[in-house]
């Protein structure tokens, strides 16, 4: 009860209303990827979009990022459309693959969006250095991406996304290609970075434990057609440490998420 009351006073940052997406496949048939999505995302919230492949979670994220346009419904970020927010350069994105530029050093990779956005040389250097410090890669700033491990590359990716000081951080399965140990370390680091920056984060994943550990709320999506089955509020205290994963409450929440999921014809 207490929780709901607190939430109502919170500021809505993203309003997703009746959003649906229909693709046309190779044979010319219409495929409904998403249907009837209604969701409010609050300012400063860490929210996960969780579901199996084909549930449209990445599609939804790409619509918020203005990489796709919804066929029905609308998305507003504040008062603005995703396109306006993007053109205003207020979006940060982290993809599953690090998408780094081989020929640029770590430092120059983080500076890339700042170059595009016409920051001065000294500003670029300063911002990129502080971002690298935040993700713990100061020592490797002059290395090239092919000299780094997968986990380190993904840290560079996060540093680059944050370098533009985005209002919104969009993460599309950023850790799914990493091993379990690296993943846990990055979970903890991401939590610390998030606490420091207070960004709104939309985190796409197919890993239930990951979603519960990181999020304030977990949106469970089910496939065929992609739809929102329910939202699970995660009331684990913050800051969270790895140990919380063995607590009874954590396991209850994992079970609750699992039960919210509607497999249908999976």
């Amino acid at each position, binding site marked *: 009860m207490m929780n709901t009351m607190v939430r109502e006073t919170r500021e809505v940052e993203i309003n997703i209303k009746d959003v649906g997406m229909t693709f046309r496949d190779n044979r010319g048939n219409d495929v409904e990827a998403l249907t009837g999505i209604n969701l409010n995302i609050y300012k400063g919230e860490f929210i996960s979009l969780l579901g199996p492949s084909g549930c449209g979670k990445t599609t939804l994220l790409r619509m918020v*990022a*203005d*990489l796709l346009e919804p066929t029905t419904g609308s998305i507003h970020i504040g008062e603005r459309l995703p396109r306006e927010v*993007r*053109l205003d*350069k207020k*979006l*940060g*994105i982290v*993809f599953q*693959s690090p*998408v780094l*530029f*081989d*020929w640029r050093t770590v430092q120059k990779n983080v500076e*890339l*969006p700042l*170059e*595009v*956005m016409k920051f001065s040389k000294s500003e670029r250097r300063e911002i990129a250095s502080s971002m690298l410090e935040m993700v713990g890669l100061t020592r*490797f700033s002059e*290395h*090239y*991406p*092919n*000299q*780094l*491990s997968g*986990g*380190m590359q993904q*840290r560079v990716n996060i540093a680059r996304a944050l370098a*533009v000081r985005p209002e919104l951080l969009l993460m599309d399965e950023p850790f799914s290609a990493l091993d379990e140990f*690296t993943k846990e*370390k990055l979970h903890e680091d991401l939590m610390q970075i998030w606490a420091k920056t207070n960004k709104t984060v939309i985190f796409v994943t197919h890993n239930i434990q990951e979603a519960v550990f990181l999020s304030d709320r977990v949106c469970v999506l089910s496939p065929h057609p992609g739809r929102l089955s329910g939202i699970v509020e995660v009331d684990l205290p913050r800051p969270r440490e790895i140990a919380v994963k063995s607590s009874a409450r954590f396991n209850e929440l994992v079970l609750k998420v699992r039960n919210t999921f509607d497999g249908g014809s999976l």
Partner: protein
Amino acid sequence: MMNRIWGKTRTILPLLLWILLFVAVWEVGALLVEASKRTPENVLPHIYQIIEAALNPKKVSSGESASQLVLSSAGLTLGRAALGFLVGTICGFVLALIMKISKIVEKVIFPYLMIIQMIPILGMAPIILSITGDINTSRIVIAAILTFYPVATGTLAGFNSVEKSKYDLMHIYAARKIDLYTKVLIPTAIPYIFTGLKIAAPMAITASILVDTLQGDKGLGTLLSQSLKHAMSIYVFWLIVFFSAFVGILSSKLMGNLERIVLPHKRIRVSRAKEESI
């Protein structure tokens, strides 16, 4: 330290083996030719005979020894090959850029590129010569045409190899077209361009020599045909064969070295950082 020595040996050993095998096969052939032909030096002389000819200070033609003659002609031919190579590289790159910017241009032009590539140089050379009317210009044009195709297709392949996620990233940053090209597409294409250049460099040299043979002027090709027609020692021919093969390999190597200078991240083989913890 031991590792470094072993590393060096490992790179030199195959080369030594290769040279040894080459000499062995050549000499077996030379012995067979010697036993069966009347003028074996016209078919396959011994390697020592070629080396002897190279070192022999005896004047062969117009007051120059065989080696001097080859080297003085080489400057002319190689200079034109290099100029044509440069022109071809620039044209190839620019055309690939235009084809990338406009799909229509790509669809219209690409078949013509293929056709140009399929015409043998021997057929193309007289046509170019009659169009330009000048052997010097022809050499440059032919070398340029030969360079042009591998560079254009290489560059285009490089542009098309850029992953969709990089476009997405630049889209999110609201990057302008010019930034997409200068910061993503062109740097990605550079290794592909060098692949084209490594193929094109020896081709430009070969083509330049071939064009020389068309019309008596100076140059390696002219010397080559004179030697073959017995206007001078046949060993001049053999010297040119070895010299141009050597320069051809060297030109390709040179492109490889240039690539490593331009792309510092290609130099790094051992990834030290990977060994350390994340």
